[in-house]
């Protein structure tokens, strides 16, 4: 093969796109602001632990929602489907004495079924997703009340709640869990090695490379954040099972969206469905799987939520779809589709989570909390769009 490096002997250097990391900076800013407001309460190890414990389901849903948002649509049924999935699992355990693993599988199956139902209508019958998922939002909520007979089912056994409340074993040295520290170090090494490898590949192929000092700054910031996070977890109970679960989900979907043909097809379809179809992409199939997948992740979120509450309640998951959608948009996804990243959505979910916890600690009224969250969503998207407009 012809190597273009020969034609391009002078290695070009480019700047790191700051906009890509703008939301990470916003995340740090929000966190620090609340550190001041709450007098450092949100720096406590338990609070840091709760950021992940209380927001695991939002992150899981935001990941699935991002795929819907990439197609230029949303899924409004998420909250109701999460509640229904939790209700099925809770009822199976409490009323039918089913074992926890089976109940969990049932929750995933119900979620996937809902997703396939939506997927069938959107892809085969070409009904707008907004309408189909508005329908599942109503149907799911109703179904949930019917299953639970409008009552709370609980308590759920430890073998079930373990998912959302358990921790890995710890090896504490001087009050800090060494497993957490080890994980933090491993991640730091991967971050640095990953960048070095990317630079080497770019160099080999004669593509422009990023300025080294900029990469160093980026890596220091990222390692600083994850180091802080794991240190705090280490000071508390160690690594939560929830974190592992969320990390696996995020890693899988990050891989799918950035490295696979399937991921490309979602982006292509969201960018221009007609062109994608004429490029050999089966857009109906993509649409189906995006929504079926959203359903599956609702099943997972249903388990996580009911496990955390140790019960299934008919009101569970109310408004979750909005949190998930907001996370995607705060994370830089475009309403028109085709633009957005899993990492962005996760950062968006963290911003929402830090806001929630920070405001609770600061003693904000729940109604005021909603006003602030709305304002943050609007502000983040406005800043994002305005900065893009200037460039164009």
């Amino acid at each position, binding site marked *: 093969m012809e190597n273009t490096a020969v034609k391009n002997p002078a290695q070009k250097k480019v700047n790191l796109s700051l906009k890509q990391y703008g939301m990470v900076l916003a995340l740090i800013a929000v966190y620090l602001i609340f550190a001041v407001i709450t007098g450092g309460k949100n720096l406590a190890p338990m609070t840091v632990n709760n950021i992940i414990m209380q927001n695991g389901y939002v992150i899981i849903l935001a990941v699935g929602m991002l795929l819907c948002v990439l197609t230029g649509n949303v899924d409004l049924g998420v909250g109701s489907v999460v509640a229904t999935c939790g209700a099925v699992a809770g009822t199976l355990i409490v009323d039918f004495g089913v074992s926890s693993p089976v109940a969990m599988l049932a929750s995933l199956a119900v979620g996937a079924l809902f997703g396939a139902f939506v997927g069938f209508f959107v892809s085969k019958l070409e009904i707008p997703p907004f309408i189909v998922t508005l329908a599942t939002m109503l149907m799911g909520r109703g179904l949930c009340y019917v299953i639970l007979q409008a009552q709370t089912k609980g308590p759920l056994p430890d073998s079930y709640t373990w998912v959302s409340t358990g921790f890995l074993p710890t090896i504490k040295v001087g009050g800090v869990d060494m497993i957490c520290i080890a994980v933090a170090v491993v991640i730091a090494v991967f971050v640095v090695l990953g960048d070095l490898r990317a630079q080497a590949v770019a160099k080999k192929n004669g593509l422009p490379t990023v300025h080294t000092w900029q990469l160093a700054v980026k890596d220091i910031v990222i390692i600083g954040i994850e180091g802080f996070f794991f240190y705090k977890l280490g000071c508390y109970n160690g690594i939560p099972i929830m974190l592992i679960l969320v990390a696996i989900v995020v890693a899988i979907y990050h891989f799918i969206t950035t490295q696979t043909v399937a*991921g490309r097809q979602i982006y292509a379809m969201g960018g221009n469905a007609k062109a994608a179809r004429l*490029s050999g992409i*089966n857009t109906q199939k993509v649409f189906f799987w995006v929504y079926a997948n959203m359903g599956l992740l609702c099943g997972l979120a249903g388990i996580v939520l009911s496990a955390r509450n140790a019960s299934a309640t008919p009101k569970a998951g109310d408004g979750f779809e909005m949190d998930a959608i907001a996370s995607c948009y705060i994370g830089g996804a475009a309403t028109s589709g*085709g633009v957005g990243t899993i990492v962005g959505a996760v950062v968006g979910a963290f911003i929402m989570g830090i806001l929630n916890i920070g405001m609770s600690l600061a003693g904000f009224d729940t109604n005021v909390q909603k006003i602030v969250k709305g304002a943050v969503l609007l502000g983040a998207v406005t800043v994002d769009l305005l900065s893009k407009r200037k460039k164009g």
Partner: protein
Amino acid sequence: MAEYILEMNHIVKEFSGVRALDDVNFKVRQGEIMAICGENGAGKSTLMNVLSGVYPYGEYSGDIVYRGETCKFHSIRDSEKKGIVIIHQELALSPYLSIAENVFIGNERKHNGVIDWTETRREAQKLLERVGLGHENVNVPVNSLGVGKQQLIEIAKALGKKADLLILDEPTAALNDQESKQLLDLMLQLKAQGMTCIIISHKLNEISYVADSITIIRDGHTIETLQKGTDDFSEERIIKGMVGRELTNRYPKREDCKIGDVIFEVKNWNVYHPDDANRQMLKDINIKVRAGEVVGLAGLMGAGRTELAMSIFGRTYGQKFSGDICINGKKAEIKSVQDAINHKLAYVSEDRKTYGLILIDSIKFNMTLSALRKFFSRKGVVDQSQEAVKAEEYRHRINVKTNTVEQAVGSLSGGNQQKVVLAKWMLTQPDVLILDEPTRGIDVGAKYEIYTVINELAKSGKAIIIISSEMPEIIGTCDRTYVLNEGEIAGELVGSEMTQEAIMGKIMAHNNRKGEL
């Protein structure tokens, strides 16, 4: 000076450091039609945006003198108040509103903020008569008209704004020959009534037909202004000004190209309209293409050329298909675009922005999109370094003018976008390429480069089908052409038989035959 209605003096416009316009000067006489010519990216549209106030006063430097008065427009409304109205390349009509509503959109006939519908319709009717559409009902939605008539509605809209200076940006880009002629004649008629026009067009024959003077722009500079009567108005002369050199042959010669066996054949192909199962769109089509051969599909708009191409290409148009497609002598089942790609078929669509490209994504993303599964992935995982290398290779090979393959295709000029679409399909390694209007709306230089690529492809033994509304293009590039008319093959012309007269002759003869039945 009363003679000149408009003077643009020393106009400079920069976009983040890049000079799109660099000291542009020209003058337009009262009551003339002036044409502005230049390659894509020469700065024509930017210039018109400066003139009409899209880029407000202060964002450019230089003077706009209109009727002896220096103007400082802050928006389109300011320039429209003075009587300068621009009609953009893309139609600015709201499809579901009526003709009357569209004619007065943004310029409503109203009293105390309430729209006077009687006056609106009456005035709209008058304006339609002025543009030769007097027989149309002003109450029907504008999308019930064809593109040609919609373009005339745009002009009626401009007249409703009491335009003295009409700017038309590529008004005939989407029109067929007959519609274009009608529009150009209307311009001449308006001129006779005292209207001044500026027209931007790539179609040089149209310019020589209507223009009184031609201003040529190249790389943001005004190069020269040619006057009718004193200067040479031939296409060669204009092209020389535009590209800065003589382009002796607009169609590069294909040398040492061996024509082989028939590798692509369509037999007794019948297709019905996608929304109307009783309306037959294509009737008993038979075509053959040999390896290394370039075959044209000529015909008027609506003859069914694009429909034929798309129905072959994975049944992306129509329903109730019958007939066979044979590749290398073997019958091929092509029911989806994926099937078509697997059978080494490629289709470069006529509308690159809607059907060809994902504008928000990068050159690399677009180039590898169709070939991703087959050539750039293993078990569904994309091989990104291979992808980057190939995209870079094709960027050089077909000369896409950009610094990096990471650039969004939406920011490229039309010619470069077309090259990206072409590269996208070359990367699928096809045997048969169908190119639908491969040079629509792109400048002469880029056209030449695309023809060169087509020649290379033919030399490497590909079968190529070119659909084009520009007959000289078919004649200049093809070995042979089929003439389509009303969904049927009206005739076939080989080599030197191909002339504009012969193509039109086939169409006329076919119409007459149909008339007799």
